């Protein structure tokens, strides 16, 4: 059993097509958003092909990749504006509460 809760760090994966740029910016924003929510998290960034072989609690990516990430994490968050950290924070807040992780 892989129980996720406030007892351990949240595993978060930010994903883009290349794994170099967009996913890295997303990782920085996710770290900001999670820290402002007071959530302890380990955030990693990767490309979509590598992500398919990985497991996380939360996967964050552009909408065009989220279909491919269904098996990667129970929570998949789609982003359209990478500059909207507040929006990401709201999406994370809502998704983590729905899982009762927050």
């Amino acid at each position: 059993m892989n129980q996720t809760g406030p007892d351990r760090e949240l595993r978060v994966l930010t994903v883009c097509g290349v794994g170099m740029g967009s996913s890295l910016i997303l990782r920085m924003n996710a770290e900001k958003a999670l820290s402002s929510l007071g959530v302890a998290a380990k955030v990693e960034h990767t490309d979509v092909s590598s992500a398919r072989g990985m497991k996380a609690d939360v996967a964050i990516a552009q909408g065009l990749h989220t279909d491919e990430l269904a098996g990667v994490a129970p929570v998949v968050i789609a982003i359209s504006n990478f500059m909207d950290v507040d929006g990401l924070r709201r999406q994370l807040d809502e998704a983590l509460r729905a899982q009762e992780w927050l």
Partner: protein
Amino acid sequence: MQADEPRPVGVARPVVEASTAVDVEDWRAAVRAACRPLAAAGAVDDRYAERCIEIAEEHGPYMVLAPGLALAHARPEDGVHRLCLASATLAEPVPFGHADNDPVDLVLAFGSPDDSSHLRLLQAVAEHLLTGLAETLRETPDRERALIVLTDVVQQM
């Protein structure tokens, strides 16, 4: 172009280029326009822009990050010789096929020679994008000023 100043060992000064009021017919031309000065400077091969385009054709408009803003990039093995960053503001915005963020009028491009050299560069770019870099570049009419703006960004990496 800029004064030498100390930089942590192993972190090369990035090549910085800019172009403004670029006339392009479509998103592919916009990506090529952003990458062209980097190729001219020897920071990337000509095929780098083509690889960015291929990735977008394969995966969709991955490079469109926010309304009107694209960040073209591919992988180190796609012909990158030096860490580099460029901007191209477009005379007329063009659609990239993104559901929410079209049309695009500012294309940034970066290249990294390996999997880690760009971390601080992108961190600096991301921080500045959160505090108005895109707007500043859009309002900057000439190439020299755009270069100053981007040089300032990379000096904070």
